[in-house]
């Protein structure tokens, strides 16, 4: 009886996921195979899902033959920017979320509401003042310009704070009775329990930073200093478009974020069950 109950929902879940996965994967595969089509083939032969002739020229012309697009350089820049940005976000967010979610201080809720409210305003028109501030710090054309401003966001704090609500307050109180201060509670009690959600925050921040292109293209003057997504924008050219080439560029660009995802997935699934264990 119990086995049946267990396996039937699993079967339904599997079939549902299979159906959705097929829908989700077709555009991905389409993008992948397109990147192996020749430009002329793509434009002259009507609809064919698979390439008539598999070519790698789209990749080689991006990676090898192109001396004005220092792809490896861009990769390296993006890695530095995204890694440091992610670390900064993790530190800043976990600390702030702890304060807004766990500590008591005057005006706390009002302050948090205020932060959330300002986040509602679209930032597009603020390019000029933001640039001026970054410029007056001497950050134009440095990695800092791409690393720090993005850490101003409040949504991640909101997310971590929402998650923290589920961690029983008794943990803190028990530690406090043992003589722990706020810092010890933060580092020894709360932080370890936040690990799964912080992995999620890390993944979001890294991907967001990796994929941002408008702001970096404004603050970097040197092509060699640009991150990869801005760099790839350059390839789109002024008047011309080669979908097959662009597709190859897009696929090269997601390799690092995909690796991070695979790593994070393993990690946060594991730690999620840990935290569940603690609670149960």
């Amino acid at each position, binding site marked *: 009886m119990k086995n049946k109950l267990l396996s039937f929902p699993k079967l339904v879940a599997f079939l549902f996921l299979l159906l959705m996965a097929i829908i989700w994967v077709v555009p991905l595969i389409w993008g992948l195979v397109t990147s192996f089509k020749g*430009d*002329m083939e793509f*434009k*002259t032969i*009507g609809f064919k899902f698979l390439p008539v002739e598999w070519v790698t020229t789209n990749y080689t012309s991006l990676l090898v033959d192109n*001396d*004005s697009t220092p792809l490896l350089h861009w990769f390296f820049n993006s890695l530095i920017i995204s890694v440091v940005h992610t670390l900064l976000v993790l*530190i800043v967010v976990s600390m702030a979320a702890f304060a807004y979610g766990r500590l008591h201080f005057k005006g706390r809720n009002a302050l948090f509401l205020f932060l959330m409210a300002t986040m509602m305003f679209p930032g597009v028109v603020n*390019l*000029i003042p933001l*640039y*001026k501030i970054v*410029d*007056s*710090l*001497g*950050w*134009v*054309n*440095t*990695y*800092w310009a791409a690393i720090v401003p993005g850490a101003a966001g409040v949504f991640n704090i909101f997310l971590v704070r929402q998650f923290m609500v589920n961690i029983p307050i008794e943990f803190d109180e028990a530690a406090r009775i043992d003589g*722990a*201060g*706020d*810092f*010890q509670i933060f580092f020894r009690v709360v932080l370890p329990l936040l690990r799964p959600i912080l992995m999620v925050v890390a993944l979001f921040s890294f991907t967001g930073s990796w994929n941002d292109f*408008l702001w970096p*293209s*404004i603050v970097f*003057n*040197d*092509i060699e200093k640009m991150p990869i997504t801005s760099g790839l*924008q*350059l*390839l*789109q*050219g*002024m*008047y*011309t478009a*080669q979908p097959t080439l662009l597709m190859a560029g897009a696929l090269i660009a997601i390799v690092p974020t995909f690796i991070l995802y695979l790593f994070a997935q393993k990690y946060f699934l594991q730690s999620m069950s840990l935290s569940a264990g603690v609670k149960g």
Partner: protein
Amino acid sequence: MRKLGLVFMTIMLVAALAACGGKSSGSNSSSSKEIVFWNPFAGPDGQNMKKMVDEYNKTNPKYKIKNISLKEGDMYKKIQTVENSGKNVPDLMIVHAERIKLYHDNKMLTSFDKYLKDYPEIKAENYMQEAWKIGDLDGSRYSVPLDIHSSVMYYNKDLVEKYAPGALDDNIVTYDEIEAAGEKSQKDKITGLGITWMKPIFLSLYAQNGGKLTENGTDPTIHNDQAKAAFQKWIDLYKEHVTNKDGEDPLQLFLQGKLIFYPEGIWMNNNLKDAKFDYGLTNAPQLSNDKSKMVNWSSSHQFVMFNSKERTDEKAKGVLAFVDWVRDHSLEWAKAGQNPASLKILDEPEYQKMAQSFLLKDPVEQASLKIFDYKYNGYVSEELDAKSLDIVFGKNPVDKALADIQKSLEDKISKDNTNK
């Protein structure tokens, strides 16, 4: 415990600040012996520009050029932000001809006058007139042209032979000829005319009808019969199935050999090179066979210097030295499919063989090139790019659309404080 935390925090902040400080000191290193050169050549033409710059730097000039190719939209945003903060302004920049009046009226440009006497060859006689005159504002010189690029028309030679024999004898294809060919070719599922970038096509037709974007230089004039007639021509061609259908990609049709006439810019030539049939390049579609009435929409990339406190007179001379060198060495730029504005190019046998050279070789052709340098051309472009296709495909009635465009232009222009 709290103390420990405070110490930890302080260390972190200090470390961060120190790191930033250390970085920033080395950052503003646009070294004084270098000319920072921004241009919007991010595509394949960027390679040609890079080659030219490398070539120039090899001549060991006093100031070497640092080439920075940016995406067009990003570059125009960037120049606003750096001009606003006054730092990191490029020493030399390429902008489109249509923007120069506006930049000049906003007092953002530095005049070349002071430095021209050292470079006597940078003068009107050596450049294509239509492109040269753009930089002449209030009796001063604010820009020097790099090229003049036009919207023309590509044609499939076999298909022309079959459906429009003789249409190209005079190197002018009229709308009537296109219509006749398209009607014939329909039966064979061959499309007569591609609907591509409507802005240059419309503007060229509008000018052929005698229309002007402005009478007095400020107020727009577009809601009129000339504009209506220009769009009506294309609406009719679409209704008669002479053109491709909505949603069809004319570039693909052309490459597949299913399209006779494909109006596009000369810069597209590099994209068509691998076509498996013979094709040619001719004037944009015209209303009449009279060559003196011909109009080919054109634009031009122009060298300008934005105001910058960091650019010394010496450096500005270095800028002119490069501009002058380009005047002499623009064959590489022609290889990108463009027509250089320096007339010296006409001496190059290799250029004479290039397809786009027909526009410069013949004085009558040269006279047909028209740059639409209305000060508010930027607004006109936005409106035309947003509405033209809807008009042609019959989704937006032409009269209403033009009235909307007119109103929108007036409202936007009324916001310009420099007019008051």
